[in-house]
């Protein structure tokens, strides 16, 4: 979901975010000479199956990817991360920021032939806030006062207060009122047989194995050239790689290890075009700011200096990532270019710690203060090798300055309920995968510290609070930029998290596909322009 800001489960998860993920750098550009032709199939893979194919109920990335191709929102991000019209042709924001008016394109049709109408937008909103519908996304629409149909092609949305992240919430796929009005959305058959307005229409779903989509010939932009889109469920990364070696899949996200060590063979070079671009997410060490040791900003800054982030990027990501300085990757307009990465400086870290009273007074090699050694547990979740290795490296690096770090790896649900929610942790190693809107209210605002909320480190800085509120209340890009750059600077200074690195997404695509290119939002935003020259098409016989 574009409106999801979720944790990156693992590097493997990068593969399922691939089709939505941001992208710009690339090592190879497929030649786009020649005229596009219709035909062939694109076989892609996901580590998990989809669950519900209606956008407002799609909570896993597989469902998000499929619904992203079958449905359209009102707006979307373009390749330059700007908000542009999707099903909406244009829109206006009133001067007070309280009213959004969208005009729909005239030629958008549901895949059953009926035209898309403003009533569908209102219906989608009603379902989003319907307490009986099992959607988790209702909170993005709490500030909406009304959604009003002006005419078939115009819809007016009023807000109780200005809410800039709202634009992103209207990227939610629009539902067909004429099909769903009398259905129970939680159990309707359309959950497994969706009908949308998107470039691909749903064909079949063999649970746990495969989902197939076909090109929608009436798509309002143009008919996608690649006729079939096959989405295979391959849960194991090693299997996925073997499938690449036999041509069983055409698109796959690689792990850094596979990309660095296994993708340069003659076969791989000959068969696949490789892409590489920073994902919109970062790994971090978060401190329990209720712990008196970590309340001292000097301690947090010292740890920041004592972790060699470049070594993490080189050693664990094989250089396929970059050092993070704050919550925004340097490609984001919200990133503050003046915040430089903290140099690795263990001696400086020791000095800072000595100022804070931590030194090796008893000569046992560990830092201590008032007779207590500096010992803490770095908690992380199970099932993520990159994270485990990161923890192991950090442990060694902090050992060098005399901190005794224990590692604890815990199963995800237990991790959240027993440790994060109960605040039973010293420090955690985690990652956030961010949406394109820079709003960080839920993560760093001091009001969001209740059990189950996301400022679990307990960060409270009135200045940051104020900025986060202001950033939500204005739609003006330059004002927002100034605000979030300041937030970036303050976070880097306060170090509630030690920001570690931004991993790269590492997809490969079979060379027979042309027009594939990387943009800041991924390789597949122009999926409908991909094509395979007639002579190279592999899946020629079209199944019924």
């Amino acid at each position, binding site marked *: 979901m574009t409106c999801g800001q979720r944790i990156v489960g693992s590097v493997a998860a990068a593969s399922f975010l691939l089709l939505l993920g941001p992208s710009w750098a690339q090592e190879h550009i497929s030649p786009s000479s020649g005229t596009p032709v219709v035909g062939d199939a694109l076989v892609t893979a996901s580590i998990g*199956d989809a669950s519900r194919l209606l956008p407002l109920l799609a*909570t896993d990335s597989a469902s998000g990817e499929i619904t992203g191709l079958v449905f359209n929102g009102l707006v979307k991000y373009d390749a330059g991360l700007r908000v542009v019209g999707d099903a909406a042709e244009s829109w206006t924001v009133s001067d007070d920021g309280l009213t959004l008016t969208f005009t729909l394109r005239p030629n958008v049709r549901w895949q059953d032939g009926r035209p898309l109408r403003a009533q569908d937008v209102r219906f989608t909103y009603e379902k989003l806030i319907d307490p009986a519908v*099992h959607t988790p*996304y209702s*909170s993005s629409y709490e500030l909406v006062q009304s959604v009003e149909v002006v005419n078939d092609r115009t819809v007016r949305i009023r807000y109780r207060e200005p809410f800039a992240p709202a634009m992103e919430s209207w990227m939610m796929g629009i539902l067909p009122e004429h099909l769903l009005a009398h259905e129970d959305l939680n159990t309707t058959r359309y959950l497994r047989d969706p009908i949308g307005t998107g470039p691909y229409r749903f064909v079949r779903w063999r649970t*746990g194995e495969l989902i197939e989509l076909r090109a929608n010939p009436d798509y309002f932009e143009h008919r996608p050239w690649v006729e079939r889109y096959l989405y295979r469920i*391959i849960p194991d990364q090693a299997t996925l790689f073997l499938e690449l070696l*036999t041509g*069983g899949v055409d698109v796959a996200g690689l792990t850094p290890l596979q990309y660095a060590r296994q993708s340069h063979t003659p076969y791989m070079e000959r068969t696949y075009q490789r892409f590489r671009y920073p994902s919109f997410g970062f790994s971090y060490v978060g401190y329990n700011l209720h712990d008196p040791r970590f309340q001292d900003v000097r301690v947090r800054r010292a740890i920041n200096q004592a972790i060699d982030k470049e070594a993490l990027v080189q050693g664990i990501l094989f250089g396929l990532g970059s050092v993070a300085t704050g919550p925004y990757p340097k490609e984001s307009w919200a990133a503050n270019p003046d915040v430089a990465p903290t140099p690795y400086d263990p001696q400086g870290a020791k000095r800072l710690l000595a100022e804070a009273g931590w030194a090796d007074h008893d000569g046992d090699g560990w830092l201590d203060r008032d007779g207590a050694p500096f010992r803490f547990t770095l908690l992380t979740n199970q099932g993520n090798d990159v994270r485990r290795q990161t923890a192991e490296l950090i442990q060694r690096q902090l050992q060098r300055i005399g901190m005794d770090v224990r590692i604890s790896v815990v199963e*995800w649900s237990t991790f959240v309920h027993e440790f994060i929610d109960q605040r039973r942790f010293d420090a955690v190693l985690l990652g956030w995968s961010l949406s394109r809107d820079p709003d960080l209210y839920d993560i760093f605002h001091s009001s969001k510290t209740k059990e189950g909320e996301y400022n679990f480190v307990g960060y409270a800085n009135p200045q940051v609070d104020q900025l986060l509120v202001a950033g939500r209340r204005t739609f003006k890009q330059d004002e927002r930029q100034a605000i979030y750059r300041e937030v970036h600077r303050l976070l880097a200074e306060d170090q509630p998290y030690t920001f570690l690195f931004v991993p790269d997404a590492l997809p490969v695509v079979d060379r027979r596909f042309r027009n594939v290119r990387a943009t800041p939002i991924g390789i597949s935003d122009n999926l409908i322009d991909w094509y395979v020259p007639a002579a190279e098409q592999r899946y020629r016989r079209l199944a019924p």
Partner: protein
Amino acid sequence: MGKYVVRRVVAMIPVLLWISVISFGIMHLAPGKPTDAATQFNPRVSLEARERLAHLYGLDQPLHRQYASWLGRIARLDFGRSFLDDRPVMDKIAERLPITLLINVLTLAVVLGIGIPLGVLAAVRPQGWFDRTTTVLVFLGYSIPSFWLALLGMAWFGVALHWLPVSGLHSLDAEWWSWWPRLTDTAWHLILPVGVSAVVSVAGLSRYARSSMIEVLQQDYIRTARAKGLPERRVLFHHGLRNGLLPILTILGLSLPDLIGGSVIAETIFSIPGMGRLFYEAVMARDYPVIMALVTIGAILTLLGNLLADLAYAWADPRIRVGKAS
């Protein structure tokens, strides 16, 4: 005999109830909630939205209430709907059960076909060269990490030789083929998964067969049979095996629930949507209805397996009278 079976079956009901209560309790004791999968660590999902979801699923009710409503539905053979995708639990199981059953039955056939003869032949001359060789081979198979064997098989037969498909259960378009190519296609895809799981499980069975045969072959009646001049094959497979089968029958009876269980690791590596992954994913997502359904079915099979093992025992060893066996 018939009465005995009926009595045993009736006696299962309280045990089943007891198992379901304990499982239900322990499941809820484990940290985490089913709504986590959809909502956890997504800042766009507020606390209120999560509580609302929990309410919709009835998770805010006291535990005994939740159990009672579960039990009420089960009594009407309704296993409820999955919290993950709101589909009936029975549909989800029905989708995966045939695949897993097929793989397990095939594996069992291969294991029996190889394991019992291996065990019997090894028992004829314990410590002989045949025994030694099979011992080493069989244990090699047992202790080799199965993911290793699986990936090796895929890399060798799938990638290097192109003899077999790498993963999955069907070719992409198999659905539209006629039945015969579809059947061979599935068979083709099953060779590696069945082969790998057979290699792993042949060890146990052949060892049990061997050790019980060794015991049996030393009994007086075997000596008598041999002294009477019966052909060795008849001695081995008629007199010997019938008695040597006892522990094997126990093992087989006890492994009845395994028939519907799949190996998570094998299913993950071979990209097969079987029961193992269904259960693992349900556990990780705390999808209570799916978990409870699988636990209940597993418990029923466990109890049935016991009964079958006891009956088979009585059949093979007349010294045991069923009436007294329990």
